[in-house]
């Protein structure tokens, strides 16, 4: 009875996922939310830590049920524009680069991880001008790092070797 198309659509899957998560959270609320403390026999907080979550999750579950119901009957089934297979590949590669960047930044330092990420992204977007890629991926992070740490006094993760190199380069 349920339209196959609707079942596969992103909108449907999204609503169902949220519904399931909301229900799970409601059921397991006790172990997800710690109990409040007591003072002089009364609770320390006026409202219990699980009050608001209870209300919100219940509302969420109800609305999702409505939404799924409406979709099944053919209302509100719009989804975003579809992607071709090529789009999926490019997307996966893109997020792989980003995830790698996120994992690499602290152990490898800002310069190296940014150089790798920016170079790979530039190539993925079709850049073939190697000089440009080199300048972008090496000087870009470098300038950003110096500006951030020297001018704005914020800290970015960096390897000691490179920090020392900057130090001697700038005579500081």
């Amino acid at each position: 009875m349920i339209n196959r198309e609707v079942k596969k659509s992103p909108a449907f899957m999204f609503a169902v996922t949220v519904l399931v998560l909301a229900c799970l959270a409601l059921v397991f609320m006790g172990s997800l939310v710690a109990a409040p403390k007591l003072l002089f026999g009364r609770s320390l907080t006026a409202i219990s830590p699980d009050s608001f979550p209870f209300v919100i999750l219940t509302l969420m579950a109800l609305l999702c049920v409505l939404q799924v119901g409406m979709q099944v009957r053919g209302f509100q089934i719009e989804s975003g524009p579809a992607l071709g297979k090529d789009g999926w590949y490019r997307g996966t590669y893109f997020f792989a680069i980003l995830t790698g960047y996120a994992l690499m930044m602290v152990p490898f330092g800002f310069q190296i991880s940014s150089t790798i990420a920016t170079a790979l992204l530039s190539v993925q977007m079709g850049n073939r001008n190697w000089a440009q890629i080199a300048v972008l991926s090496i000087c870009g992070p470098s300038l950003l790092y110096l500006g951030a740490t020297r001018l704005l006094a914020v800290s970015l993760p960096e390897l000691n070797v490179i920090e020392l190199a900057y130090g001697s380069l700038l005579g500081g």
Partner: protein
Amino acid sequence: MLRKTIKMTSSVMVAAGMALGLSSGIAHAEFPEKPITMVIPLGAGGSHDLNARVVTSIIPSYINQAMIVRLTPGAGGQKGTQEVANSAADGYTLLFTHNYIDMLQQHVETLPYDPGADFKPVARINYAPIAVVVNADSPYQTFEELIAASKEKPGGIQMAHSGNWGALFVPAAQVMKALDVSWNLVPYQGGGPAMQALLSGDADVTMGFPSALAPQLAAGKVRVLATAGAERIYEDVPTLAEVGVEGDVGFMHRVVLTPADTPDEVVEQLTGAFKALAEDKTFVRMMGRLGENVDILDGPTYEAMRKEQSVAYKDLVEKLTSQ
């Protein structure tokens, strides 16, 4: 295209690996080489914030680097404390906190860190005695009147505090226990909002420190009913001990902590800088403007106090939550 990408990626990886290998040595450089961050686990505008602003404006001349305040309120002070606990023990991230967050909290919650073991003090900047204040147009002229009214209507008196187990909450709980009264404790995001609640009439009583009280007192907007400490601060205002609340009540020590593994030379340098503040005329003058005292204690001296506090607070918490 794919092959080229792989080639490039791998060659960069090799270079990265070499760099990593080279970087295994630890560089010793002059501390501090970059600005130091002072994390305050409390909200904007409270007495801590004000004290910190004065400290961080004067201390750069003693450490030759800027010191930046970072307000990180949340979870009763745990958020900021956790941030510092997680940070590198290199002396660039300090925690400016007070004794209630530092030594008391561990007895009321399970913390993700161990204050005694994970932190060590750099310096105690000053201490502040709490004062019980009511609005100037409140019907209570003396502390006794307040207590009498509180006994008549249990839970009817609204007390604004700055967060559970915080610097206003603990003295309030101690008063409630000692004099057997029951106030309705309403939380606010810090001493500033609590004072605002008193001024707007939402709260009947609150507590405050000299720096926050000074402008309100001068303008005649609030009345002090009792103060902490062994001696009277204001001539006609009794101390808490005089009105029946005995013991170590209402003292807040403002202390700078650093992660426990911070190298000793770094800590010594920082302590030296803080101690120099006590001699700095501008610093003393500005603190005076705030209504605060200056009483710098070095790390080891305060560490001894910390240990005593931990024992005392454990006992206090047990007494307060025993019902």
